[in-house]
């Protein structure tokens, strides 16, 4: 963590790539698709996947997120054995899940468990966009719900990092029911007086926005994060006009009153720690 702010500048190349992930000109270098900066790969990773030039926050995998936010070796995972079901018998779905399990070493699109932030035990969930864009089917909904229930039972503060394309289409109506399931669990957590902080990361959309993402007592977001209910393409098709600059980005949501605070990646742990302290933890 010592060299988070170390920047190594190289020649600027004004080529904009359309890919979400920074492209890789050679094995040792990555190029930012936002500003075109070519960055030494090691610096990019030690800088938590933030472009040192334009500060764009690229997507993080769940294990990097855990090591970034939780105290070292404090994380204890839960419910890693839940099995995804192909409730619609959707062709290719089982195979897709199997392949993703192998390539990501995750059992599904969210990692949940308990851990500590500066010594305070928390219930912690982090979605992983590498696993079917963090979409919520029954297993994601179940893991989130069990996490909320554990936080309720043990009076733990609850922190969830969202990153999701929304409900998982391949599980049809069962995915839709997860919106109600997670929201109902949060209602009980609320009644028990629990503290719930969400950190919205890129992208947070659809059925996740329309359920637990937007129900935090405090809603934080990383800079530039896409946050929306409908996707921009669907909106453009519906209203037949172009969308304004910055539409559905974290800064836009803050301006419209739906995000409490935008927090740069390197300051998230400190912010969470401070909020816990302010709630008596």
């Amino acid at each position, binding site marked *: 963590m010592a060299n988070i702010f170390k920047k190594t500048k190289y020649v600027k190349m004004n080529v904009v790539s359309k890919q979400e992930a920074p492209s890789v000109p050679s094995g040792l270098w990555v190029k930012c698709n936002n500003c075109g900066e070519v960055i030494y790969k090691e610096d990019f990773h030690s800088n938590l996947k933030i472009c040192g030039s334009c500060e764009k926050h690229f997507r993080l995998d769940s294990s990097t997120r855990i090591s970034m936010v939780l105290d070292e070796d404090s994380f204890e995972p839960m419910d890693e054995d*839940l099995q995804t079901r192909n*409730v*619609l*018998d*959707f062709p290719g779905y089982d195979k897709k899940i199997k392949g993703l399990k192998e390539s990501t070493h995750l059992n599904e699109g969210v990692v949940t468990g308990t851990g500590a932030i500066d010594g305070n035990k928390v219930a912690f969930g982090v979605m992983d966009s590498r696993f079917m864009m963090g979409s919520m089917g*029954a*297993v994601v*909904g*179940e893991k989130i*719900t069990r996490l909320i229930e554990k936080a309720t039972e043990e009076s733990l503060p609850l922190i969830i990092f969202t990153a999701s394309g929304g*409900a998982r*289409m*391949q*599980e*049809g*109506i*069962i*995915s*839709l*029911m*997860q*919106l*109600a*399931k997670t*929201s*109902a*669990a*949060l*209602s*009980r957590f*609320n*009644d028990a007086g629990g503290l719930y902080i969400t950190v919205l990361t890129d992208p947070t959309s*659809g*059925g996740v*926005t*329309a*359920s*637990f*993402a*937007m*129900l935090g007592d405090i809603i934080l977001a990383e800079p530039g994060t896409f*946050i*929306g*209910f*409908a996707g921009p393409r*669907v*909106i453009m098709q*519906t*209203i037949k*006009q172009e*969308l*304004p600059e910055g*539409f*559905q980005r974290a800064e836009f949501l803050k301006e*419209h*009153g*739906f995000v409490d605070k935008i927090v740069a990646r390197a300051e998230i742990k400190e912010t969470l720690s401070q909020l816990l302290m302010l709630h008596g933890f």
Partner: protein
Amino acid sequence: MKAWDRVLNARNVNRPLSSDYIKALFDDFVELHGDRLYKDDAAIIGGIATLGGMPVTVIAQEKGKNLKEKVRRNFGSPNPEGYRKSLRLMKQAEKFGRPIITLVDTQGAYCGLGAEERGQGEAIARNLMEMSSLKVPIITIVIGEGGSGGALALAVADRVWMLENAIYSILSPEGFASILYKDSTKAKEAAEVMKLTAQDLYELDVIEKIIEEPGAGAHESFEAIALNITALLIEEISVLKAMPIEDMLEERYARYRKFL
């Protein structure tokens, strides 16, 4: 019958709408307007009425009868203010101990610029959370289309029923086909795999009851259907009212908790 035929029936231009059901099922209806925050959303009709002499709160998505009405009602696709109006009226029902009856008929929550600016996701999420613990009975009937979170935001209930030709799904068949087949014209194929019919959803335990539509559909047998629904609602509300509130809420929680 193919699932796609149900889709067509659910969208039949002559199919009775919420406004028809409100007239047929209830007496003394007083419509109440507005979310007290921004505006009144005509895509959702809300108010107080009597059902067999008992005051109830009614909240319903309305697509509109003719083109002018459809435009005014945004074709039944609510904006956030519609969901916030609904929540206001539900909280009001809770305060006065009135059971709530919701009628679902929407292709989905509106996907517009203003809807995003005003927090469509937040509005839906809040309804889901609040409805799960409202201390009065809630019964939902899907009368036509139940599209996505926009339908669910009125359908966190103690009982969810569907008309025989209604559909209820994660997304419209067109949207589903566009995402998973990369081709929105394959809606017909999508409908067959989505499990969106009343029969499918009954088997999946998503709904408790299928309300029969004699003849070719609700447009041909509306009177009989309305009489049947009135009787069913009166009976079921008395069952729910007889339950201790804690038990009713426990059952409502379990109703959604079970989906794994």
